[in-house]
């Protein structure tokens, strides 16, 4: 029986030729990533278990990217950053990206890609559920808690139960009114938000390989919203180009066996798909934009690891240009690199940043922002009964701050079209 990419990567990292779904194995970890929320408790557990003087297993493989609670006055949040800073200097960590310095990056999942840490064939763990994002580069990546991360920090190893793989094949040409966000929200709507629990979601098919790396990351990012262990896309020339411009590190691309066995396979013709939203309060509560068009909004939000990449803003800007938003619209670039691109790249002679300003948007600093609510002074956080349309990935009660707020998830195109009308609007109505 042939193996999937995920099985082959895991087998290789367990020193074996093959592994079967359901087996528990110990794997060697290539990269461990942590951030300001889970880093400090991970370090605490690491010290408790390995000793105050213990060294991390390999400092070149540990990446620490504060991103969650950055632009806040909250004293506890600030203390977390100090703990990371102290640990990084104590261990002389080369990959600590400190806040308030030119090294600051922003949202870890986007920055891992930008800094060249997503390498095909690797195994990457992170203390964040959206660590599955990195799988867009043909590697095994998943989120773990602080205890597991502390074990990796000390030993470079962790146990994994080998997952079965669900394969999603996207065929056809993507129409200009659709984005990867529509594809993944459709998948989650179809299989339900625990439909992928314990499993791999593998994305395949010509329409996937036609996507840019950023758009592929939107697909793998939301594997977790279907409960998935990891999301993965086989690497191709686009992947190699992206990675090679970011790192000199060598890597070893892995592909599935011809006769790989899948748990299930679903085929989509993207040319026939529709713009969709996830209605409050679950990411699988899918409706077509047509079905909810006209819903009155109080706010729009463009940001996060799933919807705050450069191309997300470019897509939104194409709609916002020459228009004015009718509701408060918060714009939060995922990373400082995205932020810089917005200030440098132009659309019809204006920087994209300026397009947003002229449309009346409120511009934030690169970070997670209000994607997860955060301390009360967080930019864009909800405090009441706001109805929000957002490019983020979760709409559980209270996720963006207030339990009474109602959040619709949608693509940047749909969010921008809705922002200029003050109600949920199909991007086909405004795209010329």
């Amino acid at each position, binding site marked *: 029986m042939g193996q999937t990419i995920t099985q082959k990567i895991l087998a290789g990292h367990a020193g074996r030729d093959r592994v079967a779904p359901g087996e*528990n194995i110990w794997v060697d970890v290539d990269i461990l990533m942590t951030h300001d929320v889970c880093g400090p408790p991970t370090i605490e557990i690491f010290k408790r278990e390995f000793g105050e003087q213990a060294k991390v297993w390999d400092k070149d493989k540990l990446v620490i990217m504060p991103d969650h609670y950055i632009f806040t006055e909250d004293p506890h949040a600030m203390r977390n950053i100090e703990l990371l800073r102290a640990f990084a200097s104590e261990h002389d960590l080369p990959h600590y990206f400190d806040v308030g310095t030119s090294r600051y990056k922003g949202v870890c999942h986007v920055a891992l890609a930008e800094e060249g840490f997503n390498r095909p064939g690797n195994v990457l763990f992170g203390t964040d559920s959206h660590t599955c994002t990195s799988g867009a580069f043909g590697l095994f990546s998943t989120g773990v808690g602080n205890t597991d991360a502390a074990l990796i920090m000390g030993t470079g190893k962790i146990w994994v139960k080998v997952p079965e793989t669900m394969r999603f094949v996207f065929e056809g040409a993507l129409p200009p009114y659709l984005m990867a966000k529509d594809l993944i929200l459709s998948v989650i709507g179809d299989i339900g*938000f625990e439909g992928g629990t314990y499993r791999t979601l593998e994305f395949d098919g010509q329409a996937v390989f036609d996507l840019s790396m950023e758009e592929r990351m939107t697909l793998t990012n939301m594997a977790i919203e279907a409960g998935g262990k990891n999301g993965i896309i086989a690497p191709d020339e686009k992947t190699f180009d992206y990675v090679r411009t970011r790192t000199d590190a060598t890597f070893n691309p892995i592909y599935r066996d011809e006769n790989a066995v899948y748990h299930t396979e679903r085929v989509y013709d993207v040319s026939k798909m529709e713009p969709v939203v996830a209605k409050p309060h679950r990411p699988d509560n899918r409706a077509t934009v047509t079905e909810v068009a006209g819903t009155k909004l109080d706010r729009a939000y463009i940001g996060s690891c799933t919807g705050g990449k450069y191309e997300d803003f470019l897509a939104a800007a194409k709609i916002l240009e020459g228009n004015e938003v009718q509701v408060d619209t918060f714009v939060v670039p995922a990373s400082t690199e995205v932020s810089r691109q917005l200030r440098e790249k132009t659309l019809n002679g204006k920087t994209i940043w300026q397009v947003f300003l002229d449309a009346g948007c409120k511009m934030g600093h690169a970070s997670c922002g209000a994607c*997860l609510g955060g301390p009360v002074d967080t930019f864009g956080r909800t405090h009441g009964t706001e109805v929000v349309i957002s490019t983020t990935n979760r709409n559980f009660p209270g996720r963006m701050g207030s339990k009474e707020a109602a959040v619709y998830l949608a693509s940047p195109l749909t969010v921008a079209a809705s922002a200029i009308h003050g109600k949920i609007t199909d991007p086909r109505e405004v795209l010329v």
Partner: protein
Amino acid sequence: MKDVIKGLAYVVGDSIDTDQIIPASHLVYSMSIPDERKMYGRYALSGLPTADQGLPDGNIPFTEEDAYESSFKIIIAGTNFGCGSSREHAPFALMVAGAEAVIAESYARIFYRNSVDGGFLVPFESRERLIDSIRTGDLLTIDSKSGIMTNETQGVEILLNPLGDVADILKAGNVFEYARQAGLMPK
């Protein structure tokens, strides 16, 4: 892992996510400094909408306003318990509040893993839907060896799924002890 876990049931619904188990704004507290650690007990399950707090009646906070510990020891949940973020603070908060086990129809994998690897709680799986029959406040006893859960209040016995592979980690105490036994860490 205790052989017998006995306590009052607290019943919640399906797909209780980690923001409901411990809202993100509370994650800034230290997990080790006692005065801050207890806040996790205070705010455990505080993200549940009031009507969903303690089914079937609702409106029963898991931890009372002025308390740091809950009077409930066993959480009964539907499907996909602990979905959402990877925060280990979720099973940790439940433990700090005094919970010792969860019985759910299914779990989100990171929550499940965190509960086991951290040795915070025992995540039992039920074969049937329990949230419609067990009431918040029922007295339950779980025999972790036989996997039998007795509802003392209602006088019913229910067989839970075996814990499988993770029983070894739970028996060891946490993943570190388990790794020591496997020779991956110095004793």
